């Protein structure tokens, strides 16, 4: 006999297992519909492969594993996918999640499936892939994908098969062993092969299942598989607890059994692996215990995954009036179900329908009397009483220091507590809070990083701009200095500076010697006239046999020459006009431009463009030559598109109001938004609800007016975004009406 260690702590609640082992595993007629949740395991949800309306065969893949830790799901019977939508799932939250609804066609036709003939001729990797594709997960309750657990990189010396089934009422594994011992042993051999034949293979079983023990024994002759029986005590079926009982080893804090060379598998999983490898059958059904005094028949069923609980209960003579709460799982670790339409999933080992007397509601909790019974019962050697105090005061640091996360939530402490304190619920809640906080921490760290990054980026941009500005200023200074030394010298400066300087130079020159200037301009006119003449001549000679391109060039040259002449004449006229200011036109424009806000500049640009268009139109009307006309028309089109662009730009440049003139648009948008938000928050704080509503209405009104203005201007300009603006206005209107209605209600 092998030495077995004692379970640390533990309790022995009434077993209540006899009720459901009286008859063999039963089957049920097909339900009206099967509801198959996409995510029935720990890890990433699988990738959907079917759509609503598809007809599927039994065993067909509905969703394939997506990523490393994931498991696929398969059609439990043949039929039609009627719906893929949110449906409540077996989860303590009672929440809904994505489910596939399958309406069976009644034929139960299998898809083409084929097992692996001799698994020993395949590599462990190939077998692991078969297990993965078959959607097998830990059936003991964890739901962790089996292929991942078996694919461990550590060298494994011990394989432990868990058939302890320590929780009261549940007999699914017991019955499975009694009826399928041979297949189970076959499955254990496959697991052993995949793990590279570990030295030890142990099946752990409690001594309250003698029938299962006897059923297994004959198949273990001539194998190295050892069947180990130990005293019944809850929770011997916990993974770490079972390892401790069978080997005396402890799994390190925060570690995995694989770290000490052990892999643990539930016996139901073993059976599923055998089916998948040798028959090619994916995981589409499982054995589930239906028990409790509110059901007439207590027995185990081979249930298709996705069968609604109501279907199971219907065939068990369930009396709802006798059952104050329906439990999925056992009385120690299970959770209450609110909805009878919840389906059975891969990890559902028991549906417990107890009567009120059978499992009474715990009486109200009383103060802790510090008896220490909880610490004695705890199989994880924790101090439940201390954890309870810290959980109550939300002292997460101390909770973690007391190894809260080693708690397996077995409920042994709550079970023994004479004050009826629901201890395990405190631990569950505290764990959830700590997990949530650490997640928030990760998110906030990332947000901080991104915020700091943006800040440095903006600073860099700003610094770059400052450097450029500095350089420009320096250059201007240099130029000025140079000019002071050498007034006639040409300097290299930015274009705007150039123009201003040139204009100033011209003005000076004008002032200095108008005579000279005049003569110069007259000479210019003569030159321009002769140039024009020559161009005209060239055009005339081309007339007969020129290509289109040449003609165009010539025409352009003509135009250019004409302009130049006009320019020169204009200048002369300007000069002859008595001018009391020595600032030239160019200078004026440049100065105006540099002073004008972006919006004014744009408006000015539009005005000049419009003028130019008018002139061009006139020219077209006057032109008698056909080719000249086309050239002019081309120009006109270009001017028009430019005008449109500029108008567009104008529409996007916000009208400057008094407050925002000081805000350079791009850089301080964020700051401005923050300021606005602050002002809003500050205002709201000092207001009553009604005032707040009023303020909302007011701000909405303002926004509406703004939006309407924008719309009007967009309409007048024929902007392409009219629709967007219009819907914006409509939305605002709707919001405003709603707010006003609320306000009206409030004031009543």
């Amino acid at each position, binding site marked *: 006999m092998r030495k077995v260690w004692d379970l640390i702590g533990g309790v022995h609640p009434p077993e209540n297992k006899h009720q459901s082992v009286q008859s063999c595993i039963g089957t049920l007629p097909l339900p009206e519909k099967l509801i198959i949740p996409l995510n029935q395991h720990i890890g990433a949800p699988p990738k959907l492969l079917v759509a609503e309306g598809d007809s599927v065969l039994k065993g067909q893949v509905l969703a394939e594993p997506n990523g490393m830790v994931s498991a696929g799901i398969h059609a439990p019977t043949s039929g039609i996918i009627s719906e893929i939508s949110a449906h409540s799932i077996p989860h303590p939250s009672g*929440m809904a999640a994505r489910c596939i609804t399958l309406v069976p066609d009644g034929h139960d036709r299998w898809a083409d499936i084929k097992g692996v003939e001799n698994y020993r001729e395949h590599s462990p990797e190939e077998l692991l892939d078969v297990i993965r594709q078959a959607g097998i997960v830990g059936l003991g309750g964890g739901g962790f994908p089996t292929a991942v657990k078996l694919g461990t990189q550590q060298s494994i010396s011990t394989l432990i098969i868990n058939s302890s089934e320590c929780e009261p009422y549940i007999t699914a594994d017991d019955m499975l062993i009694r009826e399928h011992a041979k297949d189970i042993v076959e499955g254990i051999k496959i697991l052993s092969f995949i793990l590279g034949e570990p030295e030890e293979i142990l099946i752990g079983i409690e001594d309250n299942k003698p029938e299962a023990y006897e059923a297994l024994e004959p198949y273990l002759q001539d194998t190295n598989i050892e069947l180990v029986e130990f005293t019944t005590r809850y929770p011997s079926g916990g993974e770490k607890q079972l390892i401790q009982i069978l080997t005396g080893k402890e799994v390190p804090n925060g570690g995995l059994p694989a770290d000490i060379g052990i892999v643990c598998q539930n016996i139901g999983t073993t059976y599923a692996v055998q089916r998948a490898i040798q028959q090619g059958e994916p995981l589409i059904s499982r054995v589930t215990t239906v028990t409790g005094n509110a059901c007439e028949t207590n027995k185990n069923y081979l249930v298709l995954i996705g069968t609604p609980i109501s279907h199971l209960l219907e065939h068990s003579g369930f009396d709802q009036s006798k059952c104050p709460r329906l439990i999925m799982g056992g009385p120690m670790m299970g959770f209450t179900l609110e909805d009878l339409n919840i389906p059975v999933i891969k990890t559902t080992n028991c549906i417990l329908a107890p009567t009120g007397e059978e499992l009474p*509601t715990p009486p109200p909790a*009383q103060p802790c009397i510090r008896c220490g019974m909880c610490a004695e019962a705890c199989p994880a050697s924790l101090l439940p009483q201390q954890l309870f105090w810290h959980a109550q005061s939300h002292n997460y640091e101390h909770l973690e220091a007391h190894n809260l996360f080693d708690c397996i939530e077995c409920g042994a402490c709550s079970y023994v507590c004479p004050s009826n304190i629901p201890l395990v619920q405190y631990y569950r809640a505290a764990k959830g809070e700590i997990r949530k906080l650490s997640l*928030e921490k990760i998110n906030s760290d990332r*947000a901080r990083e991104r*915020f700091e990054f943006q800040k440095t980026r903006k600073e860099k941009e700003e610094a770059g701009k400052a450097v450029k500005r500095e350089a420009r200023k320096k250059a201007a200074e240099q130029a000025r200095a140079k000019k002071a030394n050498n007034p006639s010298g040409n300097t290299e400066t930015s274009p705007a500076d150039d123009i201003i300087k040139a204009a100033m130079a011209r003005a000076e020159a004008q002032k200095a010697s108008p005579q000279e200037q005049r003569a110069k301009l007259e000479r210019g006119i003569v030159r321009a006239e002769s140039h024009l003449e020559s161009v005209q001549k060239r055009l005339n000679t081309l007339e007969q046999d020129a290509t289109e391109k040449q003609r165009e060039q010539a025409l352009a040259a003509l135009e250019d020459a004409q302009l130049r002449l006009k320019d020169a004449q204009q200048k002369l006229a300007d000069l002859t006009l008595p001018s009391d200011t020595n600032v030239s036109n160019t200078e004026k424009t440049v100065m105006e431009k540099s002073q004008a806000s972006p919006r004014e500049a744009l408006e000015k640009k539009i005005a000049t463009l419009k003028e130019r268009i008018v002139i061009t139109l006139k020219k077209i009307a006057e032109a008698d030559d056909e080719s000249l006309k086309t050239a002019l028309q081309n120009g006109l089109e270009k001017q028009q598109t430019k005008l449109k662009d500029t108008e567009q730009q104008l529409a996007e440049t916000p009208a400057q109001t008094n407050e925002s003139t000081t805000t350079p648009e791009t850089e301080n*948008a964020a700051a401005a938004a923050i300021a*606005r938000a602050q002002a809003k928050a500050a205002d709201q704080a000092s207001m009553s609800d009604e005032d707040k509503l009023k303020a909302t209405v007011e701000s909405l009104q303002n926004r509406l007016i703004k939006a309407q203005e924008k719309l009007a201007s967009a309409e007048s300009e024929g902007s392409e975004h009219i629709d*967007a603006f219009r819907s914006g206005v409509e939305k605002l209107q709707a919001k405003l009406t709603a707010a006003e209605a609320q306000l009206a209600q409030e004031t009543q």
Partner: protein
Amino acid sequence: MYDIIAQYPLSAALVALTGLSVVFGAVLGYAAIKFKVEGDPIVEQIDKLLPQTQCGQCGYPGCRPYAEAIANGDTINKCPPGGQTTINAIADLLDVEAPSLDEEHGEESDVKTVAYIREDECIGCTKCIQACPVDAILGAAKLMHTVIVSECTGCDLCVEPCPVDCIDMLPVAKGPGDWKWDMPATTEEQIKNLHSHDIIATDQNNNDNGKQDGGNAS
């Protein structure tokens, strides 16, 4: 050697002790410099506790500036996104009494929201991008913009600048994965929810025949 020690025991002891103190002094001094522990400056520690929503509701342009302000003596109850949890954590760190949230800066809300741009209505003005403190908006001029949900802190700053009002703050959808157990009801609440036959005489006045509250493990 021994003779000298035997002859002048007092001086020998003095010399030995002085020598020892010099040696240990040198070793300790060296260790103090070599293995100096860099303390986490208080601003860093406070900043770590703030939610990093970067919304500016506290009156400072971001969480870090507020952390600096706290380090310089500002009150610790100005951050609505962090709410009471953050206030408690900072109070714990600074070892002061935890005040309740200053309503002047906004109210705490337990629904986390993220921005959502109705993409077919976006005109590509880039205004929201400029307002987002964590670069959570993706887009370019005149092109459709969108929010990277995983990066959005729900600070609300992008909603106002949008000229066509196409940004909504939507609550984050919760699935079973985000769910957590609640703390059990207190004894008083439990007694309130009990049936009359379940309670003892002294509890009678609290009885209101409510629904039985199912505990989990017995």
